[in-house]
C-alpha cells in the first residue's frame, strides 16, 4: 500500500465534492479496492469513504421494485431484500460473512468484475442504476469487463430492481475464489423473461437472448432444449475452457428456470 488520506463525508454532496480532488477515489466496502491497494496496483491520494453516508444505505420496496442504496452491504441485502427473494439469496452467497459485512452493491456494480454476481442480477432484472447525476438502465450500464457507463467521480446512490413474477440465480463457483465460474440469473416478468450470464464472457455480463425468447414463450427448462451458447469469446483459464463455460450456461439456465420462484 502507498500512503493516502481518507475522508469520511456524511452526504452524497460532500462525497462528490471530495471526489473532485486530484487522484481521489471512492471507497465502498473496500473488499476489492483494499487488496488492490495492498498490491500497490493503485495509488489514489485520497480515499473518500462512502460508508458514513446514511442516504445511500438501506433497502426499501417501492411500487413493485426493490430499491437498494448504493452503500448497502451484501449482508443487509441478504437480510432485508426479502421482497425479491432471488436477489436476497444472491447477496447471501457472495464471498463469506466478512466480505458480506463490508462489501456493497455500489462497489460491486462500479467494479463490474466479469465474475461478480450482482451484475447478473442487475442486468437480469433490467434494474436502474441511479447516481448523483442520472439514472442508467442496466442494459446501457455494463460495457465490458471492468467497464461501466460511470464517469469519473460518479457515485452509485441506489439501484432499483423491478420485482419479477419468478426468478432464480444459479452460481457455479470457481473452486479457488468462489466467485462465479459461471452464474446465470433468470427473471420472469409480465412482459418477458430476462437471462443474464456472468463469469463466462470476455465481454463481461451479457444477456442470452435466444434463451430469453424461448423462455418468454414457454417458461420451462424444456424450452431450452437444443439451445446452446457458442464457446467463441468465452473466458478460458485454469478453471475451465470456453467450451466448458458455454456448456455450463446451458446447464445453469435450465436449473435456474426449474428453481425459479
Amino acid at each position, binding site marked *: 500500500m502507498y500512503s493516502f488520506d481518507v475522508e469520511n463525508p456524511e452526504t452524497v454532496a460532500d462525497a462528490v465534492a471530495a471526489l473532485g480532488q486530484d487522484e481521489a477515489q471512492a471507497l465502498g466496502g473496500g473488499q476489492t479496492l483494499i487488496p488492490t491497494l495492498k498490491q500497490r496496483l493503485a495509488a489514489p491520494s485520497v480515499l473518500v469513504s462512502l460508508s458514513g453516508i446514511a442516504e445511500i444505505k438501506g433497502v426499501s420496496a417501492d411500487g413493485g421494485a426493490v430499491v437498494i442504496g448504493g452503500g448497502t452491504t451484501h449482508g443487509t441485502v441478504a437480510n432485508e431484500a426479502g421482497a425479491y427473494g432471488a436477489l436476497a439469496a444472491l447477496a447471501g452467497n457472495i464471498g463469506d460473512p466478512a466480505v458480506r459485512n463490508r462489501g456493497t452493491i455500489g462497489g460491486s456494480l462500479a467494479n463490474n468484475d466479469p465474475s461478480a454476481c450482482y451484475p447478473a442480477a442487475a442486468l437480469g432484472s433490467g434494474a436502474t442504476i441511479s447516481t448523483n447525476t442520472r439514472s442508467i438502465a442496466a442494459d446501457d450500464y455494463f460495457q465490458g469487463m471492468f467497464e461501466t457507463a460511470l464517469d469519473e467521480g460518479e457515485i452509485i446512490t441506489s439501484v432499483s430492481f423491478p420485482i419479477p413474477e419468478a426468478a432464480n440465480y444459479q452460481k457455479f463457483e470457481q473452486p*479457488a475464489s468462489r466467485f462465479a465460474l459461471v452464474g446465470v440469473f433468470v427473471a420472469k416478468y409480465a412482459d418477458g423473461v430476462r437471462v443474464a450470464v456472468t463469469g463466462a464472457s470476455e465481454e463481461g455480463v451479457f444477456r442470452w437472448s435466444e434463451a430469453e425468447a424461448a423462455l418468454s414463450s414457454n417458461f420451462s427448462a424444456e424450452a431450452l432444449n437444443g439451445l446452446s451458447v457458442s464457446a467463441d469469446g468465452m473466458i478460458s483459464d485454469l*478453471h*475451465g475452457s470456453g467450451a466448458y463455460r458455454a456448456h455450463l450456461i446451458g446447464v445453469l439456465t435450465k436449473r435456474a428456470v426449474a428453481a425459479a420462484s
Partner: protein
Amino acid sequence: MPKDHGIGASPKRREDVRFLTGAGNYTDDINVQGQAYVHFLRSDVAHGKINNIDTAAAAAMPGVVRIFTGADFEGVGGIPCGWQVTDKHGEPMKEPAHPVLAQGKARHVGDPIAAVVADSLEEARNAAEAIELDIEELPAVVDMKAALEGGATKVHDDLDDNLCYDWQFGSPADETDAVFANAAHVTTLELINNRLVANPMEPRVAVGDYSRANDESKLYTTSQNPHVIRLLMGAFVLGIPEHKLTVIAPDVGGGFGTKIFHYAEEAFCTFAAKACNRPVKWTSTRSEAFMSDAHGRDHVSKIELALDADNNFIGLRTDTYANMGAYLSTFASSVPTWLHGTLMAGNYKTPNVTVNVKAVFTNTVPVDAYRGAGRPEATYQLERVIDKAAREVGVDPIALRRQNFITQFPYATPVAVEYDTGDYEATMAKMEELMDLPGFAARRAASEANGKLRGFGVNCFIEACGIAPSNLVGQLGARAGLYDAATVRVNATGSISVMVGAHSHGQGHETVFPQVVAEMLGIDESMVDIVHGDTSKIPFGMGTYGSRSLAVCGSAMVRATEKIINKAKKIAAHLLEASEGDIELKDGQFSIAGTDKSVAWGDVTLAAYVPHNYPLEDIEPGLEETAFYDPANFTYPAGAYACEVEVDPDTGKVTVEKFVSADDFGNVVNPMIVEGQVHGGIAQGIGQALLENCAYDENGQLLSASYMDYAMPRADDLPHMENYTVDHSCQTPCTHNPLGVKGCGEAGAIGSPPTIVNAVIDALQSGGHNVEHIDMPVSPSRVWEAMQG
C-alpha cells in the same frame, strides 16, 4: 473405560488455550528493539540475465539503511542441499550454486535479486521500486521433458544440461524386464502428481539479531527444526560457529514440510543484522509465499504393473520425472528417491520392482518435501495402476489387493526396506466394516435417482516414518544424522521440564509428550512441560518432519526418563534405607517391594537438590538426564482408505460423500490428537485430489499465485462428520522403539488422493463413460472434459 490420563488418554490440547485466544507468540510477534525491515526485490521473469542493478537512487530514498545485491554475498556460501543422491552411473547429483541473492541470473519468478533494509517496511518497499534493474528476459524451461531435450535452455549455465540425476533403484532392470516379457497381463498408466503450495496459515518470517558486544547472532524463524537451520546456516552459509549462533523457532503456525528447509531469507536477515548492526525483520506476504516457499510433489510418471495368469503381481516398473525447480532445496533430492522409490512395493509382495527417477531443473520455485514427501507420490502411482489393472482383468479391486498383500513380517522388499510389523488384512477388514459396503448399491441407486453418478474408491498405503536411522541414511547420501534428543530436567519440587529436539507447529507435542513422562513416573501431567524450539535451551535434536516426533524424539525422552527413574530409585533406596533392587515406582511413590514403606516422588526430587541426606559418595546431586536416540529402522504405518464420491454429470463437479480411514499407527498415546492429525491429512489429500493446482504458463509465470486461483480445501469440501470416520484401532506396535509408535502425521495426506481419484473413475465408469484416468486436481472442468471423450 477410556483412560483419563497418561498414555491412551485424550486430554484436550493445552497449547490450544494460547492459540485459540490469540496469545500465541509467533515469529512475527517478535519485535526486537531498533529493528529494521527488509523488502526483497524479486524477479518477475522466470529466467533473466541481470545486466545491471543500479541502487543509487533507491539508496538515497528516505529511511533506507542499506541495499544488498548478489555482489554483497560473493564471499558467502550458498544455500546447501542436505542430501547427495548418487545416480545410476555412480556419479554424484549435479549441485548448482544457490546464492542467497541472485548472482548474474534470476532463475524463477520470485527469485530474490536485491534486498532493501529500511526503517519501515513502507520505506523499504518504496526504495525497492526505485531500484533500476536491467534484466534481460531469457527463454524459460518449465516442462520437464522439454527441459531434457537436446538444445533446451539451461537453467544453470555451468551444468551440461538440466538433469540433476538419473537414479535407478530396486530389482535389476533386466530381471524386471524379463518378468514383464512373460507376464499374462501388463497394465500401464501415465500420470501427474500435481505441484502444490503448502500454504501454512502462518507465512514465513525471519528476524535476525546481532550483538556486537558478544559477537553473537540470533535468528528467530518459522522453522520445524531450529537445530538443522543452525547447522546449515552456521556451517555452510555464513560461517558462524554454533556457540555464536542461536536459532529460535517460537510458535509456528503450521509447516507441512515447507518450513523444514533453510531459506535464503533466513541467511539474509542473519547476515544483514550483522552488516547493518541492527536487527532485521522479514515477514513474507502471502504473495511471496506462493513464489518462494518450496513447493511440493510435481512428478510426471509412467507406471507399469505385470500380473501373472492368477492375477498375482509379478513385476512393477516406474519411470518418473521429478521437478527440482530452479535450485536444490534442502531435502529436495531425497524426496523422489529415498522417500519414494523405497516405498514403491507398497503393501504388496511384488517380487520385482524397478524404479527410475530423473530429477530435472526448471525455471520454477524449488520443490521439496510436503506432507508425506515422496510417499504420496509412490502410493498414488501404485494404487492407481492397481485399480486400472483390476478393471482390466475384471476382478474386484479389494480382492486384487488382498490377494497380493504381504502377510509375513518382517518383510524385506525389493526396494531395500524391511517392514517390521503390519497387518494389512486387519485394516482392510476394518475399512470394509466401516464403509458399509453392502449398502453401497442402494446409495448408488439413490444418487442415480438424483441424476448423479456414485463411485467407490479404495486405496492401501504404507509409509516409512520415524525418519530415520542415521547410519542407513548416511549411506544413502544424507549429510545429517537423523536421531533426536531430549533432556528431562526434574526440578526440586518434582515438576519437570523436558527439553526436546522435536518442534511442535500444530502437532500437539506440548500435550502428548507430558502424557508419556507422567505415565512413566505416575505423576500428574500438569507437572510436566516441554521446552522446544530454541537451540540455546534444547539439546541438539533434528526437529519435526516425516512423522518422527514421537517415534524418534519421544523415544529419546523415554530413554532419558528411564535414566531419571534409575537414579531416583537410588535416591529413594537411600532415603528408605533399602537396597535399590527392592524399590518399585508406582503412582508417583517409591516403595520397598512387599512393604508399606515408601517415599513420594517429591521427597526424592527434593533430596536430589537439597542433598543433606543423600548418597553423595555414589551419585551426583541433581536430577537431570539427556538421551539421544537413533532409530534402528523406519516405522511403517499402513492402512486401508475408502471413499464414495458423487459426480454431477452435467457440471463435472465431484463431492466426497463418505470417507473412511483405517490406519495402523502402532500404539496411540493421544487418540484425539491422532484423529485430528488424520482429519487434517485427509483434508489436505482431498485438497490435492480435487482442488489444489500450482500451475505455470509456458513462460514460467505462476498462474495460481494467490487464493483467487489456488484452491484450498475448505470445511464444506469435506464429508459431513457422520460420514467421515477415522479409525486407528488396528494396532501392530512398532517392534524397535520403546513406545511401539509409528507416526500419524502424514498418513491422511498419503492415503487419500488415490482413494478419491479411484472413486471418481469408478463413478464415471458406472455411468458408461470410458474414462481411465484424470490427472489431479480432478476439478469440475477436467471431469467434464474427460466425459466428452
